[in-house]
C-alpha cells in the first residue's frame, strides 16, 4: 500500500540527509508503528507519505514513494487527499471550519463528492467515532480526546485507504488515549484501512501494532519487523519490554497480559528477595509550621468563565517532596498550578506560596518563591540565543551573572552559546526553560505536562535532573498524564476530577488501585506493589 524505494530526504540548508536509504513496504490493512528517538526524521517520513514532503516543506527527495500506486513525485498532496488521510500532532491546527459536522464534511467537499454520499458518510463517521452527541459543538469547546477523534474523523470521511498519524495520543490522558486507539483498531479490523503512526509513548500503542518500523538513529536505515523482534534491538522501549529484557524472557512480551503469564516465577523471586518494594520514600513529614511550607492551598475554589474549575481543593507541599497531579484533560491540573503562581485569582479559599499570596505578590518577588515551566516551554523563551536567554534570566532573577548559564551547562552539556532556542529539540528546550526558572532558586518548582513530545532518553535525563533537585530540597509539583513518569518520580499522587481532589496519598497506594493510572510494571507484578523496572532491578541485584 505504501512503498518506499531508496528514499532519502535532504532539507534546504542542511548538509546531511534527514532520512537515508528508507526502503520498505507497508502492506494493506496493517497498523504499523513508527518508533525511534527524537529527531531521527519520523515526522519527515510521515510527511513523505502524504506528499507534504517535499511539495510543501521544500528540500530534495531522492528515490520514490508510492501510495496506492500513485507516485508522490507526480501527485501533489491535494491529489493524494482521496487515498491518504493525515493527522498532525496538534488537532487544533488541523481544523479549517468551526463545528464538528462541518469539519467532518470539509474533506469530502474539497473532493467534490455528491451531497447524498456526504450526508451518509458524516452520519456513519459520527457513529463510528462516538461523536453523534457533539455534532453541533464548536471545535474549540471540545476536550483534547474529542478534538483528536474529530481530527481523525475529518480525514476518514473521504474513505482514505491510508491513515497517517503523528503522535495521536501524546497530549491525551490515559483514558482518552485508549478511546482514540480503540477507534484506530476498529478501522484496521473492520474497514481494512492501512495505518502508519508515530508515537513516543510506546506503552500505549505497541500492543496494537502488526509491525514496527524502527528508525534507530538519525540518518540510519529503518528496520521493519514483528514488534517483538524489533523491540529486542530497539533503543526505545516501553517498561514491559524493559522488564522482559531484565527477566530474560524470549520472545519479549509486548502486552501486560503476555508478561503476566510469564511473570509467575519473577513474582516468586521478588517475593523472596524483598518483602516490600523500596518505593521512593517521602522526606520525613516535618511537623514544621505551615508558614514554612513552600506551598499551601486551603479549600481553594476557582471559577473561570462560568465554570467551576477548582472546588474546595486543599493541598500542602512539603520541602523536598515530589507530587504528581493527575486526572483527565480539563480536570483542573493546570488551573491549580496557575493558582500557585498567581495567574488565576481564587474565588474561594486561600493559597499561599512561601507565606505570600501569589496573585498579590509582584512578579519579581514571586520568582524567588515559585517557578513554573508551562506546557509549552517556548512561551518562556524570548531571546535569540541561549547565552542572551541566560543573561536575561539572571537579570530577571537578580542572580549573580553566569548562574543560569552554569545551570544550563550542568543540565544540558554541550549546548553552544549562540544556538537559537527554536533550534533546540523538545527535551533541550524544556531543560533550558527549567534552567531559566531555576536561576531564581525557587524552593517550589511546578511543571505542567513536562514529558509531552519527549523520547525515553530525554525523559530519563529529566527524571535524573528532577530527582537531584528534590534531593537538594526543592519541592516539585508536576501535572502529568504520564503514569510511568509519576511512578518514577513522585512521592505522592493527587488525583483530580471535575476540579475536586478525589485521591491523595503515596504513589504506590493511589496508582496501584487504579486501572488507568497504574504503570505497566504494577499491572504485571500485581498483587505485589512494584512501580518501576528500576525498583525491580535494584531488588534483584
Amino acid at each position, binding site marked *: 500500500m505504501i512503498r518506499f524505494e531508496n528514499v532519502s530526504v535532504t532539507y534546504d540548508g542542511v548538509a546531511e540527509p534527514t532520512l537515508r536509504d528508507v526502503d520498505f513496504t507497508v502492506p494493506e490493512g496493517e497498523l504499523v508503528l513508527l518508533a525511534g528517538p527524537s529527531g531521527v526524521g519520523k515526522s519527515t517520513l510521515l510527511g513523505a507519505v502524504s*506528499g507534504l514532503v517535499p511539495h510543501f516543506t521544500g528540500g530534495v527527495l531522492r528515490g520514490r514513494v508510492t501510495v496506492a500506486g500513485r507516485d508522490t513525485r507526480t501527485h501533489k498532496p491535494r491529489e493524494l487527499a482521496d487515498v491518504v488521510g493525515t493527522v*498532525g500532532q496538534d488537532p487544533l*491546527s488541523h481544523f*479549517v471550519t468551526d463545528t464538528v459536522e462541518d469539519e467532518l464534511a470539509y474533506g*469530502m467537499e474539497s473532493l467534490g463528492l455528491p451531497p447524498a454520499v456526504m450526508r451518509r458518510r458524516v452520519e456513519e463517521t459520527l457513529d463510528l467515532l462516538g461523536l453523534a452527541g457533539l455534532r453541533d459543538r464548536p471545535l*474549540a469547546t471540545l476536550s483534547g480526546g474529542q478534538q483528536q477523534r474529530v481530527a481523525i474523523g475529518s480525514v476518514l470521511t473521504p474513505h482514505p485507504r491510508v491513515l497517517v498519524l503523528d503522535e495521536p495520543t501524546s497530549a491525551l490522558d490515559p483514558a482518552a488515549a485508549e478511546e482514540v486507539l480503540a477507534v484506530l483498531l476498529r478501522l484496521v479490523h473492520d474497514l481494512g484501512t492501512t495505518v502508519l503512526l508515530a508515537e513516543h509513548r510506546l506503552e500505549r500503542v505497541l500492543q496494537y501494532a502488526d509491525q514496527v518500523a524502527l528508525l534507530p538513529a538519525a540518518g540510519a536505515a529503518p528496520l521493519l519487523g514483528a514488534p517483538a523482534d524489533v523491540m529486542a534491538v530497539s533503543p526505545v522501549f516501553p517498561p514491559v519490554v524493559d522488564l522482559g529484557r531484565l527477566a530474560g524472557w524470549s520472545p519479549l512480551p509486548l502486552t501486560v497480559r503476555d508478561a503476566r503469564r510469564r511473570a509467575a516465577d519473577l513474582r516468586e523471586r521478588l517475593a523472596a528477595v524483598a518483602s516490600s518494594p523500596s518505593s521512593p520514600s517521602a522526606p520525613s513529614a516535618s511537623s514544621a509550621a505551615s508558614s514554612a511550607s513552600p506551598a499551601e492551598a486551603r479549600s481553594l475554589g476557582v471559577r473561570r468563565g462560568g465554570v467551576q474549575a477548582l472546588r474546595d481543593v486543599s493541598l500542602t507541599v512539603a520541602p523536598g517532596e515530589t507530587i504528581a497531579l493527575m486526572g483527565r484533560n480539563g480536570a483542573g491540573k493546570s488551573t491549580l498550578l496557575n493558582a500557585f503562581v498567581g495567574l488565576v485569582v481564587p474565588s474561594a479559599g486561600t493559597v499561599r506560596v512561601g507565606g505570600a499570596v501569589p496573585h498579590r505578590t509582584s512578579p519579581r518577588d514571586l520568582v524567588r518563591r515559585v517557578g513554573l515551566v*508551562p506546557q509549552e516551554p517556548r512561551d518562556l523563551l524570548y531571546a535569540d540565543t541561549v547565552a542572551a536567554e541566560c543573561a536575561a*534570566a539572571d537579570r530577571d532573577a537578580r542572580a549573580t551573572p553566569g548562574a543560569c548559564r552554569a545551570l544550563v551547562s550542568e543540565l544540558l552539556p554541550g549546548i553552544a552559546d549562540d544556538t537559537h532556542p527554536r533550534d533546540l529539540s523538545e527535551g533541550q528546550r524544556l531543560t533550558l526553560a527549567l534552567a531559566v*526558572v531555576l536561576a531564581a532558586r525557587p524552593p517550589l518548582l511546578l511543571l505542567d505536562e513536562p514529558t509531552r513530545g519527549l523520547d525515553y532518553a530525554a525523559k530519563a535525563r529529566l527524571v535524573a535532573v528532577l530527582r537531584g533537585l528534590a534531593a537538594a530540597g526543592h519541592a516539585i509539583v508536576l501535572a502529568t498524564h504520564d503514569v510511568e513518569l509519576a511512578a518514577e518520580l513522585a512521592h505522592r499522587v493527587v488525583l483530580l476530577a471535575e476540579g475536586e481532589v478525589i485521591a491523595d496519598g503515596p504513589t504506590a497506594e493511589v496508582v496501584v488501585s487504579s486501572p488507568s493510572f497504574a504503570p505497566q510494571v504494577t499491572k504485571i507484578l500485581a498483587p505485589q506493589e512494584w512501580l518501576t523496572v528500576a525498583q525491580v532491578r535494584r531488588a534483584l541485584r
Partner: protein
Amino acid sequence: MADRRSQPQLHPGAWWLWALGLGAAATRTTNPLLLGLLLTVSAYVVTVCRPDTPWSRSYSAFLKLALAVLVVRLVFVVVLGSPIPGTHVLVTLPEVPLPHWAQGIRLGGAVTAEGLLFALYDGLRLATLLVCVGAANALASPSRLLKALPGALYETGVAVVVALTFAPNLIADVHRLRAARRLRGRPDRGLRGLLQVGLPVLEGALERSVALAAAMDARGYGRTADVPAPVRRTTAVLTLGGLLGVCAGTYGLLTAAGGTYGLPVLLAGAVAALAGLRLGGRRSARTRYRPDRWTPRACLTAASGVAVAALLIMAATADPAALNPGVVPLTAPALPLWPAAAVLVALLPAFVHKEPS
C-alpha cells in the same frame, strides 16, 4: 438528545437581509420612539431565534459598542458645543480660549438642552444601526454567509473564514504570553509587556498558518477540475469585460453627460460578470454539504426586513416631520402610527422561524 439541526437553520442571507433592512429603516428616522421600537423588535427576534453558538454571544458586545457610541456622541457635544441654536442652557462650562488659527472650534461653553437632545437622537440612530448589524451577526455568523458564495469565489471565502477564526486565537496567544512574562519575574501588565510579546505572538501565528495550510493542502483544498481552454478564455473575457462594464456604467450614471448609456452599460456589465463567475465555478470540483436553502420561511424573513425599510423610506418622504421631530423649539416626540405599525412587520421571523411541530 434532540438534534438541533433536525430543525434546519434559516439561510444566513435571509437574516442579513432582514437585519440590514432594519438598519436601513433606522437611517431614515431620528424619532427616538421609532428607534426604540426598532431596537426592541430586533432584540426580541434575536432572543427568540438565535442559535446556541459562540457567534451568537457577540450580540452583547454590539450592544456595548452601541452604548459607547451614544456616550461618545454626547460627550463631544458637551465638550465641543453644538451648532444647534438653543435657548435652554443647562450648564455653562468654562470656555478655553483657543488661538486664532483654531477658529470655528470651541472648547467648553454653554451646554443647551436642544443641542444635547439633537445629539441624543443622532447618536441613537447610529447605535440602532450598529445593533442591527449585531443582530445579523448573532443570528447567522458571517462564516455561514461566506459559505453561500458562488463556487468561483469559494477559495477567497475560505481565506476570510480562516482569518476570522484567527483573531480569537491571536488574542489567546497574547494572553498566554503575557502570563508567561510573570513566570520570568517581569511585570505582566502595561504597554511594554504587550510590545515585548509581539514578536513571539506573530511567530506563533505564522507557524499556525503554515500548519493549517499544510493540513488544508493534504485534505484536498484547491483541487481543480480540468476545464477546456475555450471555456477558460470565455470566463476571463466575461469577467474582465463585465467588471469594465460595471465601472463604465457607474461612471456614466454619476456624470451628467452619461445619463443615457449609464444604466444599460452597468446592467450589461453586471450580467457579464455574474456569468463569468458562474462559468468560473466549473473549475472547482467542490460540492456543498447540507447547503442552506431559501425556504419559504427564509423568504418571508428577508421580505419582512425589506418591507420595513421600504415602508419607512416611503414614510420619510411622505411625512418627514413625524420621522424627524424638531428640537427647536423643544417638543416631546410623538409616535407616528403607521410607520410604527410598519416596524412591527419585522417581528414576523419570531413567529415563522420554527416548523410547526
